[in-house]
């Protein structure tokens, strides 16, 4: 039984064909962070873009739909929660995951109240972030995704 799994293990990236195309928007003012993250996400077959400010995020989201938005709370132009509210106004169905370097219970609670799906703290292990993104994008259910991650660890 374990043998059947081995075929899937360690074949690097999840084969792009096995994951339906989905789109992720990463909003963060840290350029290096965005670059590394986008590289890793693309390698795993996810379509993604990055922007550095709240304004850019809102105009991107007005222009087209994203499955998941990964949102930093400290942005150069506006704070994360107001960005979140704007995003939800434009596209209520967009799922937003907060990813912040400034841990704060109040900010987190407000985020959840404003409709954020999850509150993550930097730095997050890529595998567990990837798992959350897949779940949020509706590509895998919770149990399936954790199964995928487990066998890949």
């Amino acid at each position, binding site marked *: *039984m*374990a*043998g059947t*799994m*081995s075929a899937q*293990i*360690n074949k*690097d990236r999840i084969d792009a064909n096995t994951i339906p195309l989905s789109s992720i928007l990463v909003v963060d003012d*840290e350029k*290096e*962070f965005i670059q*590394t993250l986008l*590289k*890793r996400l693309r*390698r795993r077959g996810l379509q993604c873009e990055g922007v550095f400010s709240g304004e850019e995020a809102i105009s991107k989201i007005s222009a087209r739909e994203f499955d998941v938005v990964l949102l930093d709370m400290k942005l150069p132009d506006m704070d994360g929660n107001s960005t979140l509210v704007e995003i939800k106004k434009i596209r209520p169905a967009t799922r937003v995951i907060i990813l*912040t*370097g*400034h*841990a*704060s*219970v109040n900010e*987190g*609670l407000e985020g*959840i109240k404003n409709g954020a799906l*999850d*509150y*993550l*703290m*930097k*730095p997050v*292990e*890529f*595998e567990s972030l990837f798992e959350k993104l897949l779940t949020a994008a509706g590509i895998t259910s919770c149990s399936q995704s*954790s199964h995928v991650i*487990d*066998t*890949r*660890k």
Partner: protein
Amino acid sequence: MIINALKNFFCSNKERSETEICSLRRSFQDHYKSFRSLLTANNIALELMAEMDETLREGQPFSMAFVRGHCTALTVNIYKMIQHLHELSNGKYAGLARVFDTVSEKIEGIIARQPKIAKGEFVLSMAEVDIYSTDQAGGKMANLGEIRNRVGLNVPDGFVITAAATKYFMDSNNLQDEINRRLKLMDDGDLEDLYTTSASIQQLIANAHLPEDLEQLINKQYEDLALRSNSRVLVSMRSSALGEDSSSISFAGQYRTQLNVTDDMLGITYKEIVASKYKSQAIVYRMQRGFRHQDVVMCVGCLSMVDGVVSGVMYSRSPRDPRSEWVIINAAPGLAGQVVDGRAMTDFFRVSRKSPFKVISREIRTHASSTMSDSQAAELADIAVRLEEHFGAPQDIEWSINDKGKIIILQSRPLAHTAAVEEQPNNDETAESFLAGGVTASTGVASGIVHIVRSNIDLLQFPEGAVLVVAHPLPEWATILNRAVAVVSETGHVTAHLATVSREFGIPAIFGIAHATEKLKNGETITVDALGRRIYEGQRDDLLKNAAPPSNLMAGSPVYKLLEEVLRLITPLNLTNPASPYFRPSSCETFHDITRFCHEKAVTEMFSFSSRYGFDEKGAKQLVGDIPLQWWVINLDDGFREGLDLKDKWIRIDDIVSLPMLAIWEGMTAVEWKGPPPVNFKGFGSVLFQSTMNPSLDPAVRSSMSSKSYFLISRNFCNLSVRLGYHFSLAEAHLSDLLTENYVSFKFNGGAADESRRFIRVNLIREVLEQYDFRVEQKADALTARIEKKSAPFLIERLKVLGYLLIHTRQIDMVMGEQGMVDSYRKSLMADLEKIVNPAKENVT
């Protein structure tokens, strides 16, 4: 009034002019000010020393910041004492500055000591690594190299980026100073601050520039690896920190491991792993276990990925019984990561340690069929025994079996015998427990309120002293293990990292209790009995009283040793006898010696002020009258009644007008001293103030010391020091119309024969003082009590309490052996005090 007093003071001499008197008055007041400042610095210094001493003994976690902060404060106060003595004595004891410089430089040297980082190659291939490369490759990779190159077992091919490389990377970006600055600013009691600081430091490192030459070396090693493997292999990158994997210190699962790294991500991933030294759980762990951040240096192993079909963890012996004759194997399908991160259920095998390594028992929990064959289990057990023989101690081994059936060793380290509990079949459940089952991940009993952690927001709100309840025992929960009293998880087993850290922190943990997050409710109080694998509602004192006392987590750790080393320069007292010719600055070896010397000489200088200006030789007058013991009084300013004949060497209590002294005296004499044996001063002092710092002190030396008890007084001030040889106790008070200047302070050093008696006495005194509104701080057997900013009438009543206690606690010696006697003594003591003290004189503000 002061002028009058001084006129009287100096009247024994020939007539003086007004200006002479004026300058004398100023001179006296300067002396008096220096003297009081010196006493203050002395008190602070002794308190700091007691605090450091107690911290070392108590075993509560303390950080480098504590050691650094206390040493700095102590150094400042010792320096102040030397300065004040300098003022008092007109620079008579210049030699002290030299001693001070020597001692403080040594202390500074110890605190600022930098870890030695082995010089050498930045990158080493696995073929070049063995146990002798530990300083370069870190424990984990050095062991793995040893297993490959000397034991001859299969390990993944690859290379190590060394400590020298990490130092080069950090230095070339000048990162350490900035990191230290951020850590110093961090409030480690504040979880939000902890996570934010941790994130900012990790981002700082991840964004730093990787020097080109280092990057090229890493890439070159990867190309060699790809050549050997005939493909552009994926690698796993693992931390291998210096100082990791010693037997009782696990650093379990704190740092980052990145699997499936492609060649273009080597540099970025390397930086992320170096940064993971500052993960929040790693910061907490180091503080808890007494490691300095700067002593941990990250090395990074890059190993080709293993196609693990079955993986797991094995122990060459039972962690509970080092003599056990079987190997314990946990196995699960897939890679090893899930076994140690606590998520997977595992199959459990107990295999004989002797050829042919028979399977003694097994528990299959993963799937319907077993994860591996008996022959594979036997092969694993054989390896476990070989590794134990090679390394000379029981081992904790991570392994994988690949699709070709080959066993590959991923890690081997000494097995921690920290009360790990082997899995046992579930006991029958009794009706009274609320929840039962699972496995004992860490033994113990604890009670607290339930706090279920499902999200990071729950995590950030974790209350101090709560029970952590989770679905899975993920390694990142370790960040709050220093706040939790117990851990309950729905899944997981004893080999999970969180179980290891729980055992190390001495926190009871039950893993594998189904539906715990549904059945337990936030905020309800429960008692977790980890050994019995039961959870009870409410606080069960009957179970809690059997809980083992917490162990000293810090003992033997680097920060603990550092504090010990520093204290050797601080607390030992070599200057014990003021009458000895060796009682001089050049004999001072420690800060304690300096405080002792400064205090002694300052008192002498104050006493001799009068003689220097040509009056009465001793300055001190002995109290006469129908009084117990011998007491000496020194008038600092206006403490004697006007018109007193100052030539006299004696003084009566009626001649004294110092308000605080009179109050203390009233307390001392209100109830007749009954306790036999008849007490002379030496007897009184030796019993009451025997030092604890130097228990081996020769009694002959002690008895040769002619110490006296002195009241230093002015109308509003009194400093009573009851001294004996090398130790002293103080009562001090200042009473005036200005509330902000008013205080009563009291210092008491326990100092009787054995520790338990000493504590009974100190506790009793504490109890009494607290009843009379003192703010009491107890540091080991030393007690400090204070009341500040209260009205003079209020403080006078409290001074009576001190006076009474100074005389009458002598009796506790005879009774403190038995609790019953202590109780009856407490009653008579409180009854006396009720008669003496007028509690109606409440504070008027």
